């Protein structure tokens, strides 16, 4: 039985631990945080499982591998909603909706009546939308807790409050899933800042994530149940993770308000900001140095790609000679300026 240490209990770490536990390895997870919480950028994720929407601008593997994520999550945690997702645009940006439709697959163009059927609270607000019936969403915090619970039931320990160094951690294999904290282990991992809000209002109900096409940021609202909504997210080339800007707040709130004016009266429950660990092509990577296997760079696709990344990482543990898709034996060296 291979002894595996996974360092980092964000979505990539917990998914790796899950896949490796399922493969029969003896896994221990270490995380420097005191528990599931805001120290990990997964905590701030939107939780959309929207491979076809993401396909609008993401590389091909995001769509292909992301499509498998819906089943992976639904088989392992409770609360995965498979109600599809909606994409709308303000009337003046109708051409953006046409372009979005042209560049994505598996969408149905629907009219005002069909929008009202799907989301009664959006009745009369948009004349047309794209409906991606096959997509889904989950509450990231509940999903992480669900994975942790499942790991505990399988006898895999998750040890919080332990800041382990991959070099000295025990085990035959060490999986470094520290995300941006592992930055110094790579020469081309960068941060892409994201800002989000959690709002609460009893006046709007949504059954599925709604994206509002916006010229600058991909703005979306994900229902979390009981009147709670996640509004995200900015995409800024910056590794600053300690403040939300007034402009971002304004754009997020402006987007929510444009979707439904009732959001103007919503309570702001949380303001979140963190950075997404990203490689230059915005695709995740697996790299290996001796017994250390690094899984990183999930960018804005943590919940969407963690299952595939974890499956590939587990494959490398079981068969070190395998060459999974995200494996970079010699990851690209960035020239220094």
């Amino acid at each position, binding site marked *: 039985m291979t002894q595996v240490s996974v360092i980092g209990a964000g979505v990539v770490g917990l998914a790796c631990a899950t896949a490796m536990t399922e493969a029969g390895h003896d896994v221990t997870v270490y995380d420097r945080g005191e528990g599931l919480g805001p120290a990990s950028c997964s905590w701030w994720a939107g939780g959309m499982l929207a491979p076809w929407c993401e396909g609008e*601008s*993401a*590389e091909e593997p995001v769509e292909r591998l992301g499509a498998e994520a819906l089943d992976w999550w639904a088989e392992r945690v409770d609360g995965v909603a498979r109600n599809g997702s909606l994409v709308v645009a303000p009337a003046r940006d109708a051409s953006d909706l046409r372009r979005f439709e*042209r*560049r994505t697959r598996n969408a149905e163009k629907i009219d005002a009546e069909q929008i009202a059927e799907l989301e009664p609270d959006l009745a009369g607000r948009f004349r047309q939308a794209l409906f991606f019936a096959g997509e889904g969403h989950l509450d990231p915090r509940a999903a992480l807790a669900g994975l942790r619970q499942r790991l505990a039931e399988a006898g895999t320990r998750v040890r919080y409050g332990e800041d382990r160094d991959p070099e000295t951690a025990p085990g035959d294999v060490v999986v470094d899933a520290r995300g941006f904290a592992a930055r110094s282990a790579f020469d081309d991992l*960068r*941060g892409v*800042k994201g800002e989000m809000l959690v709002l609460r209002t009893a006046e709007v109900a949504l059954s599925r994530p709604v994206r509002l096409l916006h*010229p600058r940021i991909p703005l979306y609202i994900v229902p979390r149940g009981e009147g709670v909504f996640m509004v995200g997210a*900015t995409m*800024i*080339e*910056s*590794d*600053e993770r300690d*403040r939300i*800007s007034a*402009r*971002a707040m304004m754009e997020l709130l402006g987007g929510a308000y444009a979707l439904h004016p009732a959001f103007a009266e919503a309570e702001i429950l949380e303001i979140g900001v963190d950075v997404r660990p990203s*490689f*230059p*092509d*915005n695709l995740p990577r697996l790299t290996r140095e001796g017994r250390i296997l690094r899984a990183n760079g999930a960018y804005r696709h943590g919940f969407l790609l963690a299952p595939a990344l974890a499956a590939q990482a587990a494959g490398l543990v079981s068969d070190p000679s395998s060459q999974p898709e995200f494996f970079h034996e010699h990851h690209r060296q*960035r*020239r220094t*300026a």
Partner: protein
Amino acid sequence: MLKLYDHAVESRLLLGTALYPSPAIMADAVRAARCDIVTVSLRRESGTARAGQDFWGFIRDLGIRVLPNTAGCHTVKEAVTTAQMAREVFGTPWVKLEVINDADTLQPDVFGLVEAARILTKDGFQVFPYCTEDLGVAERLVEAGCEVLMPWGAPIGSARGLNNVYGLRSLRAHFPDIPLIVDAGLGVPSHAAAAMELGYDAVLLNTAVAKAGDPVKMANAFARAVEAGRLAFEADPLEPRDMAAPSTPVLGKAFLE
């Protein structure tokens, strides 16, 4: 060869570096466009200058000349501060100066533009002002020390092409010796070719490539259009005329009707 502030450039296509799906695709597009100059916005959103340096590292790694811009600045003071920050980050006196007036059309504030150009030129900057095709404004900018002018084709990101061909033509005629670069509003390669055929020295664009379905292919398409337009201009194209002009002589031809 085109000279911009005594710097000779081979390529007449300048690309912006914002809005691409990923830095890797941005770099591939810049290579496909074969450009010598890229513009980069010193995003004020990055907060501290240090926070955005990974992305700027990608830009520096391209190994070509950087023209930092003051995109999104609405006042003279903002634009001047951003330009100074850019000089520090990229170590170049070049700056593409944008002072925006209106949030909906992103029209330049030409009064603020002239004022900021004056301040920056005095401070040792070499200013590339994003302006309109207005001759009076252009004259003020040249008086302020600008040795290059960058009139818009159409509002930023609008993909409308050359909105005022007459205005651009008269600007070209008015300033035969100052490098003129059409900046902003181009959507497809034929727009770029049209600007070059008017005798413009270069074009600058970003959204048309970055937001295309295949940015790398579109960069290549623009590179060819710019080259075609320039060749056509140098080849002295025909003026349009009212009557047909047969390419083979009619006289003496056997008519069958």
